[in-house]
Structures are given as structure tokens and as C-alpha cells.
């Protein structure tokens, strides 16, 4: 059940590029809730894949940013309620978070026209390297 492996590869490649050859000491990765990443699998994948690289010794910390939506029509903001999604929908959003637009609607006016304000994407928030 893992495109977490794809993500692990991506995070390591980006971090290693950013470190520019220096040894990376620590890394803070933010995961949007919509990405629905299994943090334990990601942690494991990263620990496996970083062996023998500049990141071998890096301590990796994760932070999940909760998803917030905002309606383009009425301005209402709301949070993701997993309970409103069935397994198939949750899985679809896990693969491509934009599919939230297929399955969610404004909790106040019902509009499908909303913006993902938070909880989207994956990024490296902090990187500490040696020297």
C-alpha cells in the first residue's frame, strides 16, 4: 500500500540536492493531511533508502498539516472529515489529492468550487547540514 516509497525517494533526492554534497544532520518534512501519507511507512522507506547516501545519518522528523478548505462562492472554511468519505474516495484522494474536488462540497452552500488552503503537498521545511 505504498506510494510512500515514491515519496521517500523524492524527499531524499530533493534534500540531497539542497544540501549540495554536505552531510545532512536533520530534516523536517511537512506532509499535507490530504496526501494521506502513512508516516510509519514513509519513515521506514526513508530509513531504508538513505543507507549509504549523504543522508544516512540524518534525523528525519515529520509533521502533518491538517487540511483546510475554503469555498470560492460563500467563503466558508471547513476541515476534512474523513467520515464523509468512503474507502474508494479516501484512496483516490490519497493518490491525487485534487480528487477532493470530485468528492467534497462546501459544508455551508454545497458548492464544489473551493480552494485547498492548507494540507496540500509535501515539502521540506528545515534542513540542517554539516559545516
Amino acid at each position, binding site marked *: 500500500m*505504498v506510494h510512500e516509497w*515514491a515519496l521517500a*525517494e523524492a524527499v531524499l*533526492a*530533493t534534500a540531497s540536492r539542497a544540501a549540495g554534497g554536505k552531510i545532512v544532520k536533520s530534516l523536517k518534512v511537512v506532509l499535507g493531511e490530504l496526501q494521506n501519507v502513512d508516516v510509519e511507512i514513509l519513515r521506514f522507506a526513508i530509513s531504508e533508502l538513505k543507507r549509504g547516501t549523504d543522508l544516512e545519518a540524518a534525523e528525519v522528523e515529520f509533521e502533518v498539516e491538517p487540511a483546510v478548505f475554503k469555498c470560492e462562492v460563500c467563503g466558508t472554511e471547513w476541515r476534512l472529515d474523513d467520515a464523509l468519505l468512503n474507502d474508494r474516495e479516501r484512496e483516490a484522494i490519497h493518490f491525487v489529492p*485534487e480528487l477532493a474536488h470530485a468528492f467534497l462540497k462546501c459544508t455551508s452552500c454545497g458548492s*464544489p468550487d473551493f480552494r485547498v488552503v492548507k494540507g496540500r503537498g509535501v515539502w521540506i521545511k528545515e534542513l540542517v547540514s554539516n559545516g
Partner: protein
Amino acid sequence: MDPRLAVIPFRLGGVKRIIVVCSGKGGVGKTLISTLFALLASQRGKRVGLLDLDFHGPSVSVVLGCRGCTPLEDKGLIPVEVAGVKVMSLDFFAGSAPLPLRGRDATEALIELLAVTRWGELDLLVVDSPPGTGDELLDAVRLLKGVEALVVTTPSKLALSSVSRLVGLLKAARVPVLGVLENMRVEDDVNVQRMAAEWGLVYLGWLPYDRDLERALGDPSALFSTSVSRSLERILETANLLA
């Protein structure tokens, strides 16, 4: 630092050639032609992928008859395989739900799909594109390094005015154009040929309007025996696109 962008070249590293089938105009046969192109190339023994970039109306799965299939997850997503073609489309995830994506969402969805899909080794990745000259097409040009274009049009004035704009865009963006394919011809006319010459592009040939095509949709083997497929095969062969 978006880690997804870092992984895209790696995901596409085994892909030898990427061709986007485009038009600017809707309903000219982009989806039909891109799907048939993929099927015909696969039949010739090539390793072929088919990426559906029409995020609002994904429909290569309608042509192939594989709606409801789901890509497998294995260190990424493994495309659905139909008649030897590796297919990736939002239709596999959205089912029949509406897809009200704004441009910014289409960009994100494309980055996500490219970052996660494991195409493996491919001789050819055919990309079906939506009508218009918006985010999906601009991002395909931006993110799919080395992409080439195959332009589809019908002979109608209404199609040609949009296709003209697309051709201008492809030139500005320095995307190599393989040629212009005329579809759904109903009478002898040199209009598209003349336009292709005006644009400085190769006229590849024409496909007939085929009343029986509709019945073949959803069944790859039935598609192979349509007159459209036979004409397309000849044209692609002449253009050296099946070799």
C-alpha cells in the same frame, strides 16, 4: 522545495519518446486518435504508455473499455494494462464523479500523477490532451521534457480557428510538431492541407468520418477493424511513427 518535482525526471527516465495529441479544439478526435495510436504501436511490439491529461473529461478508458479498473499500488502506481498499453487516467480514481478542477488544481494533479506513476521502460508515451490551451497543455510542455506534438483537426472553420491558435502556441513554446492529422472528413476538400502549409507543418493525411465507429468504442479488438483505425495505421506508418 517540492520533492515531487525532483522525482518526475526519474519516473520518466525509461521513456524514449513522448508525443502529445492535441488540437486546441474539442471533439475533433484527440482521444480516439491517441488511444488508437497507442494500440497500434503496441500491436507492433512497442512498449507503450497512454496518459490521459483531460482531467475534466478523462475518456481514454471509455475508448478502451476499462472504466472501473484501478492502478495497483507498488512503490508508486502501476498503470492499468489494456491490450498491452499501460494506461493512466483520472477516470480510474474519480469514477463518474464531477471533476471541477481549476487550473491550479490541474497543475497539482499533473505533478502528482507524474511523480507517482511507474511507467517503467517505454518506447513511446502517448499523451491525450484536453481542448484549449490552458494549464494542462502548458504544464505538459513545461514538465514533459522533449515532448513532441501531433495536431488533430476537422475540416470545419470552427475547428481551424482554434487549431491556428494552438499551432502559434506550440511554435512559441518550441515544441516540435510532427504534423497535422485531418479527422472526420466528409467530402473532398484541400482546406486542411492548405492550412497546414500556411502553418509550415506537414499534412499527414485524413481519416474518414465513420458511422460505425461508435459501436466499436470500448472494445480494442473491434476498434482495430474500423476504417478509422486502418487509415490511421497507414498514416502513422508513412510518417514513420510505428517503426
